[in-house]
């Protein structure tokens, strides 16, 4: 139980670490620069002492609009390897939009307490593949990197940079605000589950992931605690898609009877969760 607030904290720190290299960390640039700016970028594209990381969605967009380049492929390798191993961990631990999802889930429970009606439309998660396909087609046809205009990590990275450098976030903030309202009033975690083009890429990549939440059904008392805590609006015990699990471990931590566990399939327990 105690682990839940702790996990929240760690994840929020991890989320902001995703944007740590954005302008607000002037200290990063105080480090010796080795001839070029030491660190720059948001999760969408990061440079750290010459190490270049690209979001796999950025790589796909570049391949769609331009010719092939090894550096784009190499830049995406670390993210691909991590997601293949850890599943959609990116969504829970790195994506800055996870903070918005958390806020929207909090707003939902507050509204429920106040008796305000919200809806929870379940859009098929495969819709995101359609969004991904349309954006990549649009990228290929128009020859412009359009996905970057609709993918929250890219939008939030730019909006933050603009706030810090120029004092106004612009249209990006409007877009993110609209997503927040959608997630809060129309569909819980709806954008991440069913529309996010980057999420669609991670969904595909996470199929072989050996790190999974496992169930020990006999121990479950149907308390529903895990259903409430899941950022992605899953029911970890009864109705969960591994491809849509961000490996946040909150359901494992909250379960009072240890009916859930996060394990490495073929290995030992990775995080046994809260012991009582």
């Amino acid at each position: 139980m105690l682990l839940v607030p702790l996990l929240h904290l760690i994840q929020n720190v991890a989320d902001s670490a995703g944007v740590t290299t954005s302008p607000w960390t002037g200290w990063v640039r105080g480090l010796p620069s080795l001839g070029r700016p030491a660190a720059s970028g948001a999760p969408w594209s990061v440079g750290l002492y010459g190490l270049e990381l690209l979001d796999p969605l950025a790589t796909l967009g570049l391949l769609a609009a331009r010719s092939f380049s090894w550096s784009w492929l190499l830049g995406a390798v670390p993210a691909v390897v991590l997601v293949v191993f850890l599943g959609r961990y990116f969504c829970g631990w790195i994506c800055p939009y996870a903070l918005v999802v958390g806020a929207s889930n909090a707003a939902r429970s507050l509204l429920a307490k106040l008796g305000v009606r919200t809806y929870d439309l379940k859009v098929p998660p495969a819709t995101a593949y359609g969004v991904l396909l349309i954006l990549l087609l649009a990228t290929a046809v128009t020859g412009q990197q359009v996905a970057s205009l609709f993918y929250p990590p890219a939008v939030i990275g730019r909006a933050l940079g603009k706030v810090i450098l120029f004092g106004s976030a612009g249209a990006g903030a409007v877009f993110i605000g609209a997503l927040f309202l959608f997630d809060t009033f129309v569909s819980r975690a709806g954008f991440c589950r069913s529309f996010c083009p980057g999420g669609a890429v991670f969904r595909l990549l996470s199929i072989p992931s050996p790190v999974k939440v496992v169930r020990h059904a006999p121990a479950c008392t149907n308390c529903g605690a895990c259903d409430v805590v899941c950022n992605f609006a899953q029911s970890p015990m009864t109705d969960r898609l591994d491809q849509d699990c961000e490996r946040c471990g909150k359901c494992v931590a909250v379960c009072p009877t240890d009916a859930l566990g996060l394990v490495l399939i073929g290995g030992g327990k990775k995080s046994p969760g809260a012991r009582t």
Partner: protein
Amino acid sequence: MKWGKWDRRRVLSAVLGLFSFSALTAGLRVRRASAEWLRPPGALPPGDFEAACIRCFRCAEVCPPQCIRFDAWLPPAEADTPFVVPADRACTLCMACTEVCPTGALGRIERQPDLIALVVKMGHPELSKDRCLAWNGKGNCHLCHDVCPYRNQAVTLSGDRPRPEFHPSLCVGCGLCEEACPVDDQAIRIRPLSEKTKAPS
């Protein structure tokens, strides 16, 4: 409608309406202006640039004078892509943006003045002798010459009363002269390269 009906709520909504109208039309104004904006140094030609730029903001983030702007209220091809608006703030040719660009949308360029003079071409200078204080006799200004990193090449002063002449083939288009020009509607303007004005490579 009687004036009595103009209660506080109506007045506020009217003000709000006017405000949103001006905000919207400001968006439209910006849209027209972008045709006059410049790409940062090392940018691929138009078309190739939009295909390569993933709108990551890293060039703006590292730009010391913060001259790279991202504007989202533009058509999709240009929305949230980097622009330099020299009348606002000009590029100091540090080449930091070209060092961090992850996609080659800005090609990497060493910070060597001679090399920069050879490969950087952000725009070309256009002097209005009507507006220039040195030419129209309203002043003894030669600020553009003084701030130019390539003075005596890109801008030269000539005549017994020094007046600036610009030499497009030697100008890299940084816009420092435009930023410095004291005339409200700057006498020297750096125009983006269009097909016909592109320097032969």
